């Protein structure tokens, strides 16, 4: 699709149809998309860490699942989305390297996914689809015509969720 707006690491944005949203090379980070099919408004957050309460430097709210999702939903509603219409999709949360460190650094992908699900559930946003885990990177594109999320990988195929 054309008119794709890029969202960087620790960043978030919303668009109206016909613009779409993309984020490239998700590893252990999670891409959370929100979509209101009636208003055709899409949102995308590229989060790096589960919780803003566990680290000292938490000024960038787009970096954390807990603060980014809340902010993204607020932006969508301000732009005309209705909360009851909003559904979420998740992608990413991979473990890029195989050895497991004792202190859990390498499990960060899974922890990001768990935290994202928890926040969405708490906000009452249904998760329409999810492609998380594994050990490979993902590039995602949200089509605001229909809310479809294209997931592209290297060597693990491409799919719509």
């Amino acid at each position, binding site marked *: 699709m054309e008119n794709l707006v890029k969202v*960087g*690491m*620790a*960043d978030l944005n919303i668009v109206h149809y016909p613009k779409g949203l993309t*984020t*490239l*090379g*998700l*590893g*252990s*980070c999670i891409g959370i998309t929100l979509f209101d099919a009636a208003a055709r408004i899409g949102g995308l957050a590229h989060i*790096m*860490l589960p919780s803003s309460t566990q*680290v*000292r*430097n938490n*000024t*960038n709210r787009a*970096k954390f699942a807990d603060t980014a999702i809340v902010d993204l939903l607020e932006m969508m509603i301000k732009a005309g989305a209705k909360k009851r219409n909003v559904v979420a999709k998740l992608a990413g949360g*991979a473990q*890029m*390297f*195989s*050895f497991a*460190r004792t*202190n859990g*650094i390498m499990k*960060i992908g899974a922890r990001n996914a768990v935290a994202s699900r928890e926040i969405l559930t708490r906000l009452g946003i249904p998760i329409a689809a999810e492609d998380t885990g594994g*050990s*490979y*990177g*993902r*590039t995602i594109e949200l089509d605001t015509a229909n809310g479809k999320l294209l997931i*592209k990988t*290297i060597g693990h195929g491409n799919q719509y969720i």
Partner: protein
Amino acid sequence: MKRSIEELNAIELDVLREIGNIGAGNAVTALAKMLNKKVDMSVPQVRILEFKSVTELLGGADNLVVGILFDVTGDLEGYIMFILEQKYAHMLVNMLMSKDLSDMSDFSEMDISALKEIGNILAGSYLSSLSALTNLKILTSIPDLAIDMAGAILSVPAIEFGKIGNTVLFIETEFKEDDCTIVGNFFLVPEVESYDVLLKALGVVD
């Protein structure tokens, strides 16, 4: 005291640059020995980038790169990562295996072990110079290798930096062998508590 990268002052950055310089210098010497060829290097660039710009590194977030990761333990905890674009990884393997330098066919098992070994030597010599400078005991794990999108590989050090600040610090080094240039990137990613250990050992902070 825990501080983020953006709070480091000019002197501390100079020290990190110098560590990068010496570490990469040693790594290149080791590589030259391994290849039995003269290898030059440029002065390493210490770069500090916002996360948003991190994905633009290494030819863009979905460009294929090779990442070699080592656990660092001992007095300093964290990890070190050596990342290079796929084309440069091929060139390194080809040099080492005496293959045609333009050969970009898929990596074989043998190529992967060669890359791990190169990573091993580079990271090992990098860290041993750091160890000699600081008198800290620094141990590394066996290498772990991943070939995937740059953004996905870079997310690993970026997330660790994300715990303490909003920027990533890394060291970019160019190696030159005859007319063939290879660009490699080192990320030394200390755990939060290890920054002060490092800066203290270097005599930068009390």
